[in-house]
């Protein structure tokens, strides 16, 4: 008896049909995630790529002064540059299509050599400057004797490339000297190392304080009956939903030297003169801890809810002291919550800006304050992006360490 091939196909065909159906299903599933991927690409990956690019981009000098850069190539960067270089500079400046291009050049060079702004704009305004190379040189020097200072020429020569490591180097307090060798920034310009350290310090303290406050609270909430727990959860969440500015203002009212806390303490005689709680590190840490506390409570609470109470009971009934049972049985089971909450609070606090700006002194500002400053006030976006990249790198590094130590994925649920 023969069986028709159509009813019982060879095994190979079945396999192919199956895998076809499988891959169709996979594609369909993938198409469902496309909107999310596009969204991530547009709002996260492209901006980060643009940020990283801007941190190394250096188009101003080479765009505005192409012949000057060429003329400076053979220069030893120590002696006085040749008159031909002056002539090339004037030629380049007179070819600029718009004042704005001179302005961009002046701004770029000024960040390298303070004073270059007025030097470049002065020369640009003095155009046309005519004559042979020597005459041009003399006219520039007559206009502004600072043209004889080689610092400015070094800045031009150093920035004659489309890409530069200078912003990134500056973000870790390094720089290239005139010859292109790496060296540390001079003492009085060494800022970001200390600021980065301070940023991590504040974030770490805030994370620890949040953990200290949130752990007992979340534990207590997780043991309450549902209705009570929900009610108290709202109390936790109301400040979470309030604008940060309002909360910062409220802390000013509470903490200032004639504020509620100081007057209360003075009245009951605990202190004899007001404590300094504001416009220093204390104020920043108090307020940041308050603002970030819900981010610690929520992951802890959700993990603690899922920990069965039977384990601790079992440990106690087997003869463990209650405290030891808590420490050795309960706490290890809540570690995913501690990790998730800690990471969340730490990463959020690294980027904090408005709270330290309003409640801190000059030495309490975190890295984002300077990023905002370079973006908004100095309009030096290269430096802002380099500091942003530094913050990004530091965060990634920490996340890597966390993964390594915890050997688990980040679990928020």
């Amino acid at each position, binding site marked *: 008896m023969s069986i028709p091939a159509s009813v019982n196909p060879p095994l190979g065909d079945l396999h192919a049909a199956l895998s076809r159906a499988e891959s169709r299903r996979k594609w369909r599933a993938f198409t469902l995630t496309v909107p999310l991927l596009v969204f991530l690409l547009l709002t996260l990956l492209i901006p980060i790529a643009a940020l990283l690019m801007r941190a190394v981009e250096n188009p101003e000098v080479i765009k505005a002064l192409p012949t000057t850069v060429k003329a400076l190539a053979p220069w030893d960067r120590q002696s006085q540059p040749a008159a031909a270089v002056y002539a090339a500079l004037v030629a380049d400046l007179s070819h600029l299509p*718009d*004042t*704005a291009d*001179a*302005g*961009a050049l*002046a*701004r770029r060079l*000024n*960040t390298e050599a*303070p*004073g*270059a*702004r*007025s030097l470049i*704009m002065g020369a640009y305004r003095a155009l046309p400057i005519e004559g042979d190379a020597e005459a041009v040189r003399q006219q520039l020097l007559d206009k502004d004797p600072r043209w004889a200072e080689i610092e400015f020429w070094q800045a031009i020569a150093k920035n004659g490339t489309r890409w530069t490591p200078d912003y990134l180097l500056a973000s870790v307090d390094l720089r290239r000297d005139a010859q292109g060798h790496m060296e540390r920034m001079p*003492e*009085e*310009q*060494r*800022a970001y190392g*200390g*600021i980065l350290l*301070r940023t991590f310090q504040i974030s770490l303290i805030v994370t620890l304080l949040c953990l200290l406050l949130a752990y007992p609270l979340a534990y207590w909430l997780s043991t309450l009956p549902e209705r009570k727990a929900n009610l108290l959860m709202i109390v936790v969440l109301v400040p979470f939903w309030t604008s940060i500015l309002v909360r910062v203002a409220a802390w000013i009212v509470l903490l*200032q*030297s*004639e504020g509620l806390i100081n007057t209360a303490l003075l009245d009951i005689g605990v202190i004899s003169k007001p404590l300094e709680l*504001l*416009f220093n590190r204390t104020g920043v840490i108090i307020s940041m801890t308050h603002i970030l506390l819900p981010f610690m409570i929520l992951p802890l609470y959700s993990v603690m809810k899922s920990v069965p109470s039977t384990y601790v009971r079992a440990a106690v009934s087997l003869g463990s002291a209650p405290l030891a049972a808590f420490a050795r049985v309960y706490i290890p089971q809540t570690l995913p919550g501690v990790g998730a909450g800690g990471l969340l609070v730490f990463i959020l606090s690294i980027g904090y800006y408005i709270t330290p*700006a*309003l409640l801190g*002194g*000059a*030495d309490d*500002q975190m890295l984002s304050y*300077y990023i905002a*400053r370079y*973006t*908004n*006030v*100095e*309009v*030096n*976006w290269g430096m802002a992006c380099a500091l942003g990249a530094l913050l990004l790198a530091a965060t990634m590094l920490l996340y890597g360490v966390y993964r390594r130590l915890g050997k688990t994925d980040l679990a928020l649920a």
Partner: protein
Amino acid sequence: MKKSLIALASLSVCFTMSARAEDAITVVNFGGANANAQKVAYYEPIAKEGVKVTAVEYNGEQAKIKAMVDTKNVTWDVVEVESPDVARGCDEGLFEKLDYSKIAPKADLLPSAVTECGVGVFVWSTVMAYNGDKLKTAPTSWADFFDTKKIPGKRGMRKGARYNLEFALLADGVKPADVYKVLATKDGAERAFKKLTALKPNIQWWEAGAQAPQFLVAGDVVLSTVYNGRIDAANREGRNLKIYWPGGIYDLDYWVIPKGTAKKEAVYKFLNFAMKPENQAVYAQNIAYGPTNKKALAKLDKKVLGDLPTSDKNAKEALQFSTAFWADQGEALEKRFAAWATQ
């Protein structure tokens, strides 16, 4: 007949009203007491002349203007900017070049109010102030500000290098006329930072202009650097804050037109209105900032004049803020300040 005429008239009014949609301009200021004075003196009265002003506040972020001009999506028509930003933005092509024939006769304005891209709006000053109700020994020099033995207590200072370095040099005995000459040298900057270092534990930094008078009123600090208009505003609310004028650093704020605004005609109408002496006088009556139109001074009484940074008595030993110096050295000095604060 009469009725239809009225109907026609009201119809034409409607048309002119709608035609005037382009006479609605956005004017950007720094907020606070100053914004209120501008509202009373300029924004509200000019509505009668057919220009509707919408006021917007900002914090001096030039990045916002740059973003608008770069993307050719200019929604701000007149922006108040601080002096270093006028020259910088003008160089970088962010602002329109001004046509003074449509604003005011140049001869009527203060010389420093007339620049290529910005017209001076008012003169303000950063001064030393104290609470007359709380401080018994009034300061008599900038050296007193840095002398915590003579006047014990905290000092309020603006977070940043600007103004503070100048004050430090004044306290160290540099004459107002020489301050920027000294500060431009390496030793001079060193000297200024050193003077600040000695005071550092006693400094309470302020970020926003309104904080300084609050510090003084609350008694958090005994002396503070402060914008003089903020003191005036606090005193209008019944405080007794006093200003020490010598060594104050005066400067102008400017109005600029971001490049590419579609409403130039209305903008010039606004600038012309606001630079008129009678309107500038109304402004000065509402906040103690000096008018930039010299003719406005004649319209002010003695009491108002006495509080202005431009009056002869107050300006006698004052220092003019050097835009050129800060445009060149600002970024480096602010970074140095950040490094200094970390130490």
